[in-house]
Structure formats: structure tokens, C-alpha cells
């Protein structure tokens, strides 16, 4: 993905991604942020510019791996470390579910990156777009869900751009509408 492509993404755009991406959850975010802080590089190069918040379910097949199911995990837990990864690794697209907080939103804006929603629970469908497991890192230390999986995907999606680099945030829009409804409901309940 080029810088221009990432910057032009807007809330509501629907995408399918082809190419390389890596998975990272809580522990991998902590480790990667630590490496970045010490001026070191991740053990996988070149680092894809797309991160997928996911802990795949994979099986060994011959000398490699096959991913059976790989939907998104809740991105909000990754908020404390996401800005460091966006800036330090040059990420252009974050894929997850449930949205992220203000710090990440700000980092997306500063670095011209976007956050896209993938449908939670639909892991069997998402895995069909994974054509190859290029490698898995920190598997021994972190276990299957928390390891970094380097994946090659073809038409991975549909993904919905939910936070863009121009200050658009779909979750905030929905939250405002829902809050109005909630107030009306609370009043009626008494």
C-alpha cells in the first residue's frame, strides 16, 4: 500500500487486501514496542505495512502451517502500544474489531494510516483468504494466539474503513446516535 493510498482511505470505504500482513495481539505489541524503543528491528523483515489484530488457529502441515480460522480480536486492548508500532514500523493499515482509542486515532492521523474493521467471529471465512503462512515468530515464548504470524493473503475482506487519517471515526458516529437512544430509553424506564 502506498502512502497516498493509505491517506486517501475514508470511513465507510470497503476494502479487500492482497499481499503480506502480520498478526499481533497483546504480548506481541508489548514486545514490538520494546524493540522499537531500543532502536532494534523485529525478527521478521521486511515488516509488512498491514497489521492484523488476530490470534489465528493454525495446524502444522508438512514443514509449514495452515491457518484454519483467523478472525479479528478486540483492538481496544492494543491501544497503549499501537501508536509506537504505527510510527516505528511505518504501518499504513490496522485491521481489527471494535475500534481504538484517542491515542491511536491521533497516531493514524499523524502518520497517514487507517483502521479497518473485520467482522468478528467470522474466522473460518477470513482464513480462506490466507494463501500462505510465511513464518511464525515468538511461538515458543508466546504460544499460538499471541505469536506473530506472517501471512500472505488474497482478497482478504470485506474490510470496512472505520477510522481514517482525516479525523473520521465510525465508532464515534455510532456512539453518538446510540447515546441519544440510550438517554431516551433511560427516561422511559424511569
Amino acid at each position, binding site marked *: 500500500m502506498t502512502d497516498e493510498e493509505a491517506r486517501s482511505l475514508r470511513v465507510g470505504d470497503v476494502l479487500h487486501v492482497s499481499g503480506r500482513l502480520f498478526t499481533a495481539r497483546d504480548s506481541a505489541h508489548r514486545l514490538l514496542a520494546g524493540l522499537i524503543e531500543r532502536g532494534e528491528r523485529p525478527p521478521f523483515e521486511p515488516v509488512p505495512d498491514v497489521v492484523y489484530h488476530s490470534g489465528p488457529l493454525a495446524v502444522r502441515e508438512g514443514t509449514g502451517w495452515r491457518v484454519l480460522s483467523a478472525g479479528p480480536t478486540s483492538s481496544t486492548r492494543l491501544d497503549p502500544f499501537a501508536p509506537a508500532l504505527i510510527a516505528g514500523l511505518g504501518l499504513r493499515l490496522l485491521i481489527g474489531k471494535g*475500534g481504538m482509542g484517542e491515542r491511536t486515532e491521533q497516531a493514524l492521523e499523524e502518520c497517514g494510516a487507517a483502521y479497518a474493521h473485520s467482522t468478528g*467471529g467470522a*474466522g*473460518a*471465512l477470513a482464513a480462506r483468504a490466507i494463501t500462505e503462512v510465511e513464518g511464525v515468530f515468538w511461538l515458543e515464548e*508466546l*504460544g499460538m494466539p499471541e505469536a506473530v504470524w506472517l501471512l500472505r493473503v488474497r482478497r482478504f475482506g470485506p474490510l470496512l474503513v472505520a477510522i481514517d487519517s482525516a479525523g473520521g471515526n465510525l*465508532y464515534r458516529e*455510532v456512539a453518538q446516535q446510540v447515546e441519544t437512544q440510550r438517554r431516551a430509553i433511560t427516561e422511559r*424506564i424511569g
Partner: protein
Amino acid sequence: MVKPDLVSHLVSGLRVAAIRLPSDVARALAQAQAREDTPRAQSELATVLAAVDVACAGSVPLCQDTGIPTFFVEAGERSPHLSLLREAIPAAVHRATREVPLRPNSVDPFSGRNPDDNSGRGLPPIDWQLVPGDDVRIHLRLKGGGSDNVSALCMLPPNAGLAGVKDAVVDHVVASAGNPCPPTIVAVGIGGGSALCLRLAERTLWRAVGERHPDARAAALEEELLALVNETGLGPMGLGGRTTALDVHVEYAFRHPASLPVGILLQCWAARRATVRVDRRGKVEVV
């Protein structure tokens, strides 16, 4: 030999649960899709329903997060097979982790190590209830961490009354937003005490969508809460829409005069469950 048979049936139960969404849940999702009137909500549910089909067709786990396999045993007090269960259940989880497979999800809270087989101190969680009769029903479920993370315990002042309970449920669903993968099944336990209200809520997770509580007052509360939760407009995946919950299940116990405990659990749409039955003669079946 009941024991090897029991272990293999429990493995089958775990396999069925991981791969095939119960028909009541799938039906409710299809009905929800028909009810939605925005492309975004329809598209989320279309993706969900496509994943349900792909999982079945390919015999692969629907969601990668197969949770911490969790059990509720209704143990007939006159069953001659009770002594087998304590060992058979962990053995089945161990085997299913390799054979289905289930994602190895157990982590030592002190070292952070994952033993890679879903084993570990205190696991799998088993909730035992003695019931009359000689049948044993072993209910199992696989609930993802994202939906378990948004569980709530509200110790309300008794004067908050039922209105307070309704408020707490609506507020909690709204605050949880898209994190538990809506449309959810909302489980509400009322009364009993802090631990019991959560356990009452948990036990409703094995009910079918559309099943009402036998007590008319609890059933009416379920229907009212379902309407209120869906009025919020949070919608599928928290992206807006008419279907925030597929159902609400309520269970209750009498409360202490000083307390009105409410336990709230949100079950993701991928409500994976199964039941294995062992009769008096040792016949085992996945029901």
C-alpha cells in the same frame, strides 16, 4: 466401556460446538439479516452467515477463539457413572485441542506461558449441579475472550428495583459497544448474591435462542429487555443497526434485603454450545 466412549463423545461435542453453530442461533441471525435495513448491518450479517456456512462445509472452527472450554454438568444423583466425569472432561479437552483442533488458550497468569494444550490449574471450569434422576447431561460451550471481557457485576441498591436492573443492562450493552461481537445473547442473573448472580447468568448461556423463562415475570422481563437493547441502535458488530441482541435470557434467585445483585454476560453471536448425555445404562450421545 463407558469411559473411552464418554471421552470420544465429549470430543465430538466439542467438535460440533466449534464447527457448527446451533440451528436456533443460525436461524435468529438469518431473521436478523432480513430485518436490517442498512447496507452496513446487512453486510455484517451476510459475512457472519457466510462464515457459518464455510465452517460447516470445511469442517473448520467457525471462530479462531475457541475460548476456555467450559462445562455445566447436570448430574443425576442416582447415576452410576458420576465417578467417570472428573477425569473424562479434562481428557476430552486435551484430545479435542489436537483433534478438532481447538486453539490452545490456557496461559499461566504468573509466567505468561501457554502449555499449548488448554490444560492448567483450575481448568477446564466445571459447574456441577445435582439433579433428581439417573441421567447425566454435560453441557459445554466455547466463548471467546472478547465477549468474556465485557462481563459485569452490578451490586444495585434494592430501591433501584427492576427499573435499575433494566438500566444496568441497557447501559452495559451500550458501554460494551462492538467488543463482544454483537448481535449478542444477553445473559442476566438477578439476586442470590455476587457470585451466584453471575453463575445464574452463565447457566442461561446453554438455553436456545427464543426459549423463554418458565416464570411469566422473568419471561416478560426477557422480552422487554430484548426490545430495549435493540432500541439502542448499536447493531451488528456495534456499527449501527436494529439487531444488537438475538435474545435476552434471565435467571433469578431470591436476594438479601440489603442487595440487588445483577450479573450480566454478553455471549457473542458465535454462541457455540453442545450437550452430551449419559443415561443410566451408560449409553452416551451428543444431543
